[in-house]
């Protein structure tokens, strides 16, 4: 197993991003989190988690993975079906197995990108096998 500490020591500043074109299955209606056809807040949470996973890609040993432990999100602006939403996550602190992210999402607006959400996220690096054993 690689020295995970050494790997993680240089993680601060690493970032990842994912883009989603909002479709019907991404709306509050589909998620059951509301009744209007705009990007669901839980879908935005998932997008930010995906961006954080991207930031960790290539930095973990094969037997390791990360699990979401905490997220705070201010969902500022609605996104209609068809909107292209990009979530970005940047590692701001590594505390042992805990990796802290700043997360932000934006979409194009008439005068450039507009922030639609901002928050923080915590992921914990775990052994995939041990984690599943403990969960059973």
């Amino acid at each position, binding site marked *: 197993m690689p020295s995970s500490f050494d790997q993680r020591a240089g993680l601060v500043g690493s970032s990842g991003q994912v883009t989603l074109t909002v479709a019907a299955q991404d709306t509050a209606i589909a998620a059951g989190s509301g009744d209007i056809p705009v990007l669901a807040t839980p879908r935005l949470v998932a997008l930010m988690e995906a961006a954080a996973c991207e930031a960790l890609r290539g930095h973990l040993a094969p037997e390791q993975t990360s699990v979401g432990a905490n997220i705070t999100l*201010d969902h*500022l*602006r609605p996104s209609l079906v068809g909107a292209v939403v990009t979530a970005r996550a940047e590692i701001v602190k590594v505390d042992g197995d805990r990796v802290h992210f700043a997360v932000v999402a934006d979409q194009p607006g008439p*005068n450039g990108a507009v922030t639609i959400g*901002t928050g923080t996220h915590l992921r914990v690096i775990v052994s995939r096998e041990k984690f599943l054993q403990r969960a059973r």
Partner: protein
Amino acid sequence: MSQTVRAEMVASVHSIIAEVGDELEAGDTLVILESMKMEIPVIAEQPGTVAEIAVQQGDVVQEGDVIAILL
């Protein structure tokens, strides 16, 4: 007496309504923030002249950040 207007929540700056030098009455709108998926006007609580608008359209402000200063 100066009046410092601060953000009451995390928000993005939707639009700037007032300009430096504008003389505002209490209740006049300075900027419009967008938070919780709603447009939220930020108003002058007392009459005054706009000395500074401390944000730009598209900025993300945190709770307590200065939005504007009126004299």
